[in-house]
């Protein structure tokens, strides 16, 4: 399964991709904002991991756009972000995320959330 990793920080993309490798997901592609991610998304992507705060198009808008397209409406989307106040989380759930990870995270948390979304990939809201 290919995972699309979306983050404007190259450092964070490397860290997420390394964490994915450590839990057995070796096939990845990258995008540095939501607009790039929409272009990079194709039929081979089985999971999207996105940051929230990004230039050009942020993660929240990306989630809304992906949910609005038939080819990505059911794709599991993990939001990985520093934003962790209640209103932000609720907003992300309403936009259609499948799960939410607060930075800084551990590979164990990443694995747990990925397992959860792949087991029952329906969006939370």
């Amino acid at each position: 399964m290919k995972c699309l990793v979306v983050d404007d920080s190259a450092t964070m993309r490397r860290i997420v991709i390394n964490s994915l490798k450590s839990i057995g997901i070796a096939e990845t592609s990258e995008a540095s904002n939501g607009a790039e991610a929409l272009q990079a998304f194709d039929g081979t992507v089985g999971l999207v991991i996105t940051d929230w705060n990004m230039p050009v198009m942020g993660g929240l808008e990306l989630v809304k756009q992906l949910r609005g397209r038939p080819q990505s409406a059911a794709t599991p989307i993990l939001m990985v972000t520093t934003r962790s106040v209640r209103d932000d989380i609720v907003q992300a759930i309403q936009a259609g995320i499948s799960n939410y990870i607060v930075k800084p995270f551990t590979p164990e948390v990443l694995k747990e959330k990925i397992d959860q979304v792949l087991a029952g990939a329906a969006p939370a809201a």
Partner: protein
Amino acid sequence: MIERARFTSYLADLEHALRLMQELVSGVRTIEDDPTRLPQVLSVAEALAGQQCGLMALPDALHQAYGAITRALGDVRVSREAICVHAADRLRRTHARLAEVTSATETATNRLLDGLDAALQMVDRLDGATAGGGEANPTVAEVARGLRAQLTGLYDILQFQDITAQQLGAAGDLLEGVEQRLVSVAALLEPNLPAGDEDAEPPGTSVNDGRASTLDAAVRQRLADSLLAAARPAAVHAPGP
């Protein structure tokens, strides 16, 4: 400082004098046709002459006012320079330093990641060599596994760079906002100055999370988990789109 009351009085005197002057001019025009009006015109002229006592002080008062205005403008110029040089410029420099720190930590973090990548590859080779050498050496394999776990853990620690970059970025955005406001204030004091950076991002458009934190991630994760758990049953029972 010249009192406002004195100026008001001078203005009243001036207005009265102008009225008398108009009356005098009209009177002089009528004398030719009606010489009997001469005494009346002379009385207006006398009244006008008497009126001058207040007006005589007006040039001096205006001179004082000019001096006061010049001093005030000087003070304003000093204030503008103080804002531009001592406040806005310092904020700009501080902002630039924050950006420099962020860039330096990003470069350093990427070098560390390069080092970790190389170290992980070496561990992989060590593991491969052990496995390919016929009988596997359990001690080496165990060491390699432990080393890989340690290195992966270091990878995760480097998330601090993204978080602190957002904190510094948010602080920089704040400084930039304050700097723009100070430049706008300075521009009010000196209309020839530009009113600030028109290309600057409006407030609220920053991509930096000022509340980003390296602390209490587990507590914040539990909040996210509980909100997601609360949202899921509702989704199950909710009618489809």
